């Protein structure tokens, strides 16, 4: 039995304009200690997936499908049962360390909270454990820092506090939603390395959400590329990066700035914008922006085809996409 098995997950958000289908037919599975990257543009459903896994969707969100954690379907759990799972068996790190910590409580108090809640530690035990955790995530001088408020720490240190917080109850799964996006480039690597080391040490499974292909390539074993609320390409990380198949994945890759392209070199872009989740097109959601799109793409949703073992792509023109890769689909 997989640690986490998500089948046919649908997330929709009711809005004044009608339901927005933020996530459609998502299937992911994660073994103990495995790392999965979810990559895609803003608004592709990455964060909604993470929130749905945690059971923390906004009030207007509804879910369908199954999310089973060690065989227990989380979508059938009561709110009370979910409270025992959140922060304990599943923990999450958020994008904005600046706003994700409570400004009026010391960081120590905030790390102590899950320790006391889930592990039933006394105040003094939790305090000791907190200092240990802060040391582990690389916060210098933890016995003093523990009394600091978030505004007294740098962005990188705050994210370390968030990591200590998420780590506190040794969860089975750690979900990191763009954990480095808000940080300086120099700090980003340190934080990713820290997460990677802790995941290895603890044997946690990691779901790393990012829009940055480089981050995903370096830190995960499996990848799911999301577009318009659905996974368009998934598989083992090296296979995907060695054999980019879906036109969207190729576009994302081409859009990454590369060293040595010269100051006058133009960045490649994918034309157009992400689809409106309220009025999704009937066929492939990428049709409007795809260089290979045909009439068929606009009307029929593509089925899943397997490129190699485990490497799955949803595209009508998969062969053409792979063949065209050499010259580049995007000019």
């Amino acid at each position, binding site marked *: 039995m997989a640690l986490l098995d998500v089948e046919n997950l649908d997330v929709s958000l009711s809005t004044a304009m009608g339901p927005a289908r933020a996530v459609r037919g998502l299937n992911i599975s994660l073994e103990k200690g495995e790392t999965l990257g979810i990559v895609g543009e803003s608004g592709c459903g990455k964060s909604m997936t993470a929130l749905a896994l*945690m059971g*923390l969707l906004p009030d207007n969100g509804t879910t369908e499908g199954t999310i089973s954690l060690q065989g227990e379907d989380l979508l059938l759990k009561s*709110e*009370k049962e979910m*409270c*025992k*799972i*959140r*922060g*304990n068996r599943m*923990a*999450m790190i*958020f994008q*904005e360390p600046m*706003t*994700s*910590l*409570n*400004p*009026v*409580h010391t960081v120590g108090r*905030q790390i102590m*909270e*899950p320790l006391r*809640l*889930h592990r039933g530690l006394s105040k003094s035990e939790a305090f000791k454990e907190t200092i240990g955790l802060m040391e582990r995530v690389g916060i210098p001088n933890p016995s003093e820092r523990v009394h600091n*408020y978030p*505004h*007294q720490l740098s962005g990188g240190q705050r994210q370390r506090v*968030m990591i200590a*917080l*998420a780590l506190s109850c040794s969860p089975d799964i750690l979900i990191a939603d763009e954990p480095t996006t808000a940080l300086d480039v120099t700090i980003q690597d340190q934080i990713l390395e820290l997460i990677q080391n802790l995941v290895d040490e603890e044997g946690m499974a990691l779901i790393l959400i990012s829009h940055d292909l480089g981050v995903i390539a370096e830190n995960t074993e499996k990848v799911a590329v999301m577009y318009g609320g659905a996974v368009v390409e998934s598989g083992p990380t090296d296979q995907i990066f060695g054999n980019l198949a879906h036109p969207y994945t190729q576009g994302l890759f081409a859009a990454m700035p590369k060293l040595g392209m010269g100051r006058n070199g133009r960045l490649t872009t994918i034309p157009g914008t992400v689809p409106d989740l309220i009025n999704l097109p009937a066929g492939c959601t990428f049709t409007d922006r795809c260089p290979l799109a045909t009439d068929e793409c606009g009307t029929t949703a593509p089925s899943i085809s397997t490129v190699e073992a485990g490497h799955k792509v949803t595209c009508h023109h998969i062969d053409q996409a792979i063949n065209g890769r050499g010259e580049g689909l995007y000019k």
Partner: protein
Amino acid sequence: MSVFFAKRFMTLLATLLGASIVIFIVMEILPGDPALVILGVEATDEAIALLTTELGLDRPALERYFDWIFGILQGDLGNSYAYKVPVWELVEGALKITVPLAILSMILSVALALVVGLYAAANHNKASDISLMGISQLGISIPNFWLAVLLILYFAVNLRWFPAGGFPGWDEGFWVCIKALILPAVALATVQGAILARITRSSVLEVFREDFVRTARAKGLSQRSTLWLHVLRNSMIPVITVMGLQFANLLAGTVIVENVFHMPGLGSTVLKAINNRDTIVVENVVLMLAAMVVVTNFIVDILYAVIDPRLKAHDI
């Protein structure tokens, strides 16, 4: 921390000094000669001149200002022109009604506001929230003097639970006095509490949308624990700001309700003094009100810093 307090305290003193100057100048400019008002329109010029000298009003303004200020510093507020008794004697009784009334109204208002505001926010958009906010809208719209009359009719005349008006004085016992203050306090607190409840609700709802609330939920805290442990304190800044303003308003703006209940509070005292051109009483009472408002703001500032450590940091 001490720098923060020291700064705030200096501001407090400067504000009071400024207020005393403004009050004095306004009373100087105000038409109406105290001696003329006391003696009446048929008094002879000599009599008026004599009384003016006797009251010390012929001295230069600057001299009278400093006399007043140094008097206050030594605990002497001067003598009333109209009644020839020390100002403190006139004001003392009024203070003993107005201040407890303001405090009692504030307690009722805050209790009402927190209970209603938090309950409504916790049940956002549910029937209980919508009906509570509807009722609070009604509470805001009711004029307090009219509510005061209704309260008298029902609780004092029909049920006879409370006196219909008047104030026995604190010598008659604590509970008797509190009983006399309840109805006016309810009349005043209803409007203030309704406003404060709406502010509490919207502030709590706003904080609920913050990222750190999501973090708290991701830790495994229930919605309710999140409200108490993380949201409440963060949402109190606007609530306390309005509380401060309301308290100031209660000290000076209760004349109408005091009149309905026949209570000679500070408002009625100052109104009478203005009619008598008893400028020294007016000056002292207005300065006293200013002092209470400034002190309230000082306390609000300190509460800000207690609630949000960031504010302290910015100030130092």
